């Protein structure tokens, strides 16, 4: 529990139902000796390949990164939720292994977390259906309040913070929040869950330069080629045919 486990162990962990606990542990104590991300072979970049890219085989070992704003408790919560939402399997490593916690931490630490591009003047009223979120809190504070409320709720119902639960219980707790049936003090469990799910998916699918989607794991999973996205000479040639290339991200062109 004090060392980041190698990838194989995560996969085994997922199969035996202990992955989330392991990742939360990894978050508490990062192992800096872990391997660096591998480089992609340049000759595979543009040539379409006949076979599906094997997602798991090329994914480098997971290294937790330092957090900018999330506390250890908050990071462990986000990791547990991200790994339940995106469990490790043959299709991809887990959410936290893909850097989703890093992504969320950086987003919340920056302009987005501080409430940029959000109308924040009062007076305030509770949200009504159809009119959108009405919380005066900027996203960082909204998430902090939500994580606290969620952990308080699982402590009251299951005796532990979310990340302390067994994976099956984590999924069950998240489902209860998704349905809006978790009784949080002061904040709706459903709007919080939806905001969390949105951020987790952003982290999984956004360009890797934001800290998530490491090694373009999600793009490999679905077969999204990324950049440069210039298909004028390919749309005819690949009509009805698999376009299978090594994906490329913004960093590959920078």
């Amino acid at each position: 529990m004090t060392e980041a486990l190698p990838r194989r162990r995560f996969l085994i962990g997922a199969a035996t139902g202990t992955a989330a606990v392991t990742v939360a542990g990894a978050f508490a104590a990062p192992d800096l000796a872990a391997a660096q991300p591998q480089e992609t072979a340049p000759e595979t970049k543009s040539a379409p390949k006949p076979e599906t890219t094997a997602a798991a085989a090329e994914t480098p070992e997971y290294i937790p990164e330092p957090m900018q704003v999330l506390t250890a408790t908050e990071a462990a919560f986000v990791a547990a939720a991200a790994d339940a939402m995106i469990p490790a399997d043959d299709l991809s490593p887990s959410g936290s292994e893909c850097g989703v916690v890093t992504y969320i931490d950086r987003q919340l630490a920056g302009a987005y977390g501080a409430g940029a591009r959000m109308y924040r003047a009062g007076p305030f009223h509770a949200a009504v259906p159809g009119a959108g979120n009405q919380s005066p809190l900027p996203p960082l504070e909204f998430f902090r309040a939500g994580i606290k409320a969620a952990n308080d709720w699982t402590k009251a119902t299951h005796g532990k913070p979310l990340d302390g639960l067994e994976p099956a219980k984590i999924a069950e707790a998240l489902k209860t929040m998704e349905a809006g049936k978790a009784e949080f003090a002061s904040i709706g469990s459903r709007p919080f869950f939806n905001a969390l799910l949105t951020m987790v998916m952003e982290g999984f699918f956004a360009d890797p330069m934001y800290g998530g989607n490491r090694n373009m794991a999600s793009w490999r999973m679905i077969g999204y080629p990324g950049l440069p996205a210039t298909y004028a000479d390919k749309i005819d040639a690949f009509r009805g045919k698999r376009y299978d290339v090594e994906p490329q991200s913004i960093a590959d062109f920078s």
Partner: protein
Amino acid sequence: MAKKLPEVDAVLVGMGWSGSIMARELSKAGLTVVALERGANRVPGEDFTLPGIRDELRFSVRQELMQDPSQETVTFRHGTDKQALPMRRFGSFLPGDGVGGMGTHWNAMTYRFLPSDHSLRSHLTQRYGKKSVPDDMLISDWGVTYDELEGHYDRFEKLCGLSGKAGNIKGKIHPGGNPFEGWRSAEYPNKPLKPSLAGTMFEAATKELGYNPFPAPAGNMSAPYVNPEGVRLGACQYCGHCERFGCEANAKSSPNTTLLPVLAKEPKVDIRDRCYASRLVYDKAGKKVTAVVYVDLRTGEEYEQPAGMVFLSAWVFGNTHMMLHSGIGQPYDPKTGKGVVGRNYCHQVQSQVGVFFEGKEMNPFMAAGSLGMVIDDFNGDNFDHSGMDFLGGGYIALNSTNARPILTRPVPPGTPRWGSEWKEATAKWYRSSASMNCQGSNYSSRGNYLDLDPTYKDILGRPLIRMTYNFTDNDRRMSAFLTEKGAGIAKAMGATHIAANARKGDFDVVPYQSSHNTGGTPMGTDPKTSVVNKYLQSWDAHNLFVLGASVFPQNAGYNPTGAVGALTYWAADAVVNKYLKNPGHLMKA
């Protein structure tokens, strides 16, 4: 105290499509023009370049090119008995900001409205009788007819270099085009784009069902194009990063790619970016506007810019806001039905039909803003509404616009939103799915309108605009009908799964629907029911013209900008050839 500047011939508020076209036409007539644009200047070669322009998070999710709600937003309520709340972020529609406006980051599906859409009330009452239009439906004729607008549609299409296939050239029906369209004087300037697999499947299925498929008219260049202004556009790369992004290939028609290179060289046109207009100075007795007051956002300093003519080109909310805040025209009151400013506010009643094809490789990321196949068989009044419980309709299209993975990764109905099962479905269906769009019309209703919010303010200290809006029963029935037709096409295409989601229930400001908002300053021939006349001239100030979709008396089953472009050329023609020769009201009230 605002600092007073020397008078110019014309001031424009907003530099999107409508402002840019008008600025160009006024400059050709030799006038001095000042254009105020609250957002930044945007230069494609600097701002829209690889690799950064392919950043889905920045441009699509965080909406970097759009209006910043912390500066100004819209408040919303479902009815006059409800408390309006501010849209703290934009969702259902995404207002533009910056030189080029929404035209920098639109998809460029560029349609003409049907002739009957322009003369809607006369058309429907002639065909179905006076009682066919319910009392609370405020639809009306535009005042200008399709025949009068045809040449102006044509000019806009040539400016843009649209890729498409004509269906009706001077009354002769051409196979492969839209047989329902109004006559056009010429073929499209560019040939259609290359179709996607999903598009060819839609084409085959709709033909089999006896419908009339045609390629969506596209402001994405199928081949390089030089427009009548002498500006060159490149060829579309089918990059799938069109809507919400600027075009890296200079291949999307936008003010920035078609007009601004010319305007930038015009010594008499002065485009002042980051200058936020706050109000018009109105001489009520003289029935004219004398100046525009604005704040330079770089310094905070306030200026008064006197002008011989003023053009509002600040989009639907901006135009209506400026009229109300400046006290021009009588605000609309839904209780009495009196007043006009804020009247006829509409949106688009859109619905989607998701289609999934087991084992098919559809390469959904090879896509273009307007790449698609369309049928118009159920649009407007192209089908008989006798015995039906609604008016209106819309096109049904299979658009291959994008498959950017943060926001577009469809899974069949019933799939969980996360977890192992969700992952498996996402990996399985991402490349094997597509989506149909039912572009439903929205007919104006007595209860849907815009006014000034009594509580919330923008950064200039002005009241926000308040939107009172909901779908009507007519809208829901129309959507149910259209979506069912879409589902029928999906079946004929052999889809493994179909996700048909007709618009039901109440309007919601969160999920994106379209930025096809219309109305608020409707045009017409009667000042009791319209804000501007058929030349887009204010009834209350003869030197004030209002441009853009805010003048639509109702919305049709199409994307609006083809009609916005045509109307702007139409108004420019009236200004240059009528108004300048004899300034005053162009129509009798």
